[in-house]
């Protein structure tokens, strides 16, 4: 039987899938961009020191926040009216709306609002910073827990040369950092962060949220903004002795670092330690050194065991996501953007999906039987499975599903 299995596996798994020409060209183009960026970002040390000294002296300014959308408008733009209200209240208290030039640095939690830093050809402006419980309309879940006690931060990122930021090709990482804690480990990603962003007049507005960092108010707190996808240890120096974090002056890209001045009375050592413990707890089966939440692995494994036959037994179809489409003139099924349920999960097919009808024939896919084409989610509570079904009349029905045990959230 083993020989047969070997034979079947070898045949079935013979590499068949070719990367498309467009995909390969994209790689070459991105390599060219990277080479260019790298040359631009890293300079020889002696030059860098001079450049950094100049940049450091001239790059931090307080700007008039009214040049940009307000934090409230940004939150509103992302559909979070509740959070928009809190930001509006904050701005009103600080006089941002009525007296824009004095917006910067009014009080505790929002001390850096209106502050701007320019590095690597980008200018970053902090538009809002808030912390508290139940401030958002969206309920976030992570590691099996509802995270309602959050810190929200809004920044505007723009190119200094006036060109529009292109989020398709430019990555940014925005995160609070905590003095005394290794920034590569303790940042927005491990603080169960999430963000929404959009472009308006060439400026990228990002609304970041993560676990509430006020409990660390007795430490140095920072906000970093970089032109990378994740935290990059090469962009900042972490002094293990003092616990201080500082910019790597030799980096000529974007590595802004704002110092947050929070009211020390907000510190909560017990809560802070709980957060530290949660993050530092070693993930199971993690020999690659990457922290993967066990819930995510479990959810993926569970979803992987679903089949067309057992799907209905274990999952519930979300009727608001169901679409039945026919083949268009170009021979494609085009699924429109869909959204699971904003109040529960922001999982969505934001760009819709396109299926080449030539490959979705009744011969390949039994009519009437849902075929699982994808799933994602960091836990069972966030798991969403998508399916398509080829119908007898040649149309295709698309749907998103959730596990039955969590379907109550979607009722």
């Amino acid at each position: 039987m083993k020989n047969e299995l070997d034979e079947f596996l070898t045949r079935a798994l013979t590499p068949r899938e070719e990367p498309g020409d467009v995909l390969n060209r994209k790689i070459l183009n991105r390599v060219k961009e990277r080479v260019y960026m790298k040359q631009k970002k890293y300079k020889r040390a002696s030059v860098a020191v001079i450049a950094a000294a100049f940049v450091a002296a001239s790059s931090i300014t307080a700007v008039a926040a009214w040049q940009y959308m307000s934090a409230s408008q940004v939150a509103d733009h992302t559909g979070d009216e509740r959070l928009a209200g809190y930001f509006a209240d904050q701005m009103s208290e600080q006089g941002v709306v009525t007296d824009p030039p004095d917006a910067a640095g009014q009080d505790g939690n929002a001390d850096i609002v209106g502050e701007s830093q320019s590095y690597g050809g980008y200018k970053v402006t902090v538009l809002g910073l808030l912390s508290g419980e139940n401030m958002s309309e969206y309920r976030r879940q992570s590691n099996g827990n509802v995270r309602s006690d959050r810190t929200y931060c809004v920044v505007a990122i723009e190119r200094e040369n006036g060109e529009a930021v292109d989020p398709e090709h430019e990555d940014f990482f925005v995160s609070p950092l905590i003095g005394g804690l290794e920034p590569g480990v303790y940042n927005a990603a491990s603080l169960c962060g999430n963000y929404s962003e959009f472009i308006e007049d060439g400026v990228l507005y990002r609304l970041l949220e993560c676990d509430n960092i006020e409990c660390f108010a007795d430490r140095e707190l920072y906000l970093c903004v970089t032109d990378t996808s994740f935290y990059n240890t090469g962009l900042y120096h972490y002094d293990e002795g003092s616990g201080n974090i500082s910019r790597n002056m030799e980096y000529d890209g974007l590595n802004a670092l704002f110092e947050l001045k929070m009211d020390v009375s907000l510190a909560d050592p017990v809560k802070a330690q709980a957060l530290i413990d949660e993050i530092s707890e070693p993930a199971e089966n993690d020999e690659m050194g990457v922290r993967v939440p066990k819930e995510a692995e479990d959810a993926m494994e569970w979803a992987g065991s679903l089949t067309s036959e057992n799907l209905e037994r274990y999952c519930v179809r979300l009727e608001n996501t169901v679409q039945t489409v026919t083949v268009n003139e170009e021979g494609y099924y085009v699924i429109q953007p869909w959204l699971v349920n904003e109040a529960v999960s922001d999982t969505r097919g934001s760009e819709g999906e396109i299926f080449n009808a030539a490959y979705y024939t009744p011969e390949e896919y039994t009519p009437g039987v849902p075929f699982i084409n994808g799933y994602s989610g960091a836990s069972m509570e966030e798991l969403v499975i998508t399916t398509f079904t080829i119908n007898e009349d040649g149309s295709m029905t698309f749907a998103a599903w959730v596990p039955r045990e969590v379907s109550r959230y979607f009722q």
Partner: protein
Amino acid sequence: MTKQELTECIDTYGRDIYSFCRHLTGNVQEADELYQDTWLKTLELLENIDSTGNVKSYCLSVALRLWKNRKRKFAWRKRIAGTQDYLDEEGNEYLSDSGPTSEERILAEERDRTVRNAVGTLPEKLKAVILLYYMEELNIAQIAAVAGVPEGTVKSRLYQARKLLEQKLEGVLYEK
């Protein structure tokens, strides 16, 4: 590595790496991103990579690591990936296979699909080892290097994976 060398590497190993990404991720959109990032990360890590060296193993190792990272990102930036032309290459390849009769071909296609689906349902770590062994034709030592685990772990995972597949594919195996 020059642009020309990169082009040659992609020509030589692109199919192997891409197939690995497709089966590892289970869908096209994720696979495209993983494939792209794998090359970019490989270049970043080995700026002076010797293209005559074992580029394939290195890329597979990078792909595996990035995929683990990406799974962490589910919490960070969730979205559902599409499956645009998931079966394009398979469909084309089968059609061009003029050897066996059409009935035999259909049966073989069906069996292959069943086997691939069974592999797709394996836990991630077991799936990765099976793909590296059968798809990428790496030996135990090479897989250990790619996955960053001891050879004994690779053997154990291979054994477990085969056991699970034997159970899942019982019908297919006895059918023959």
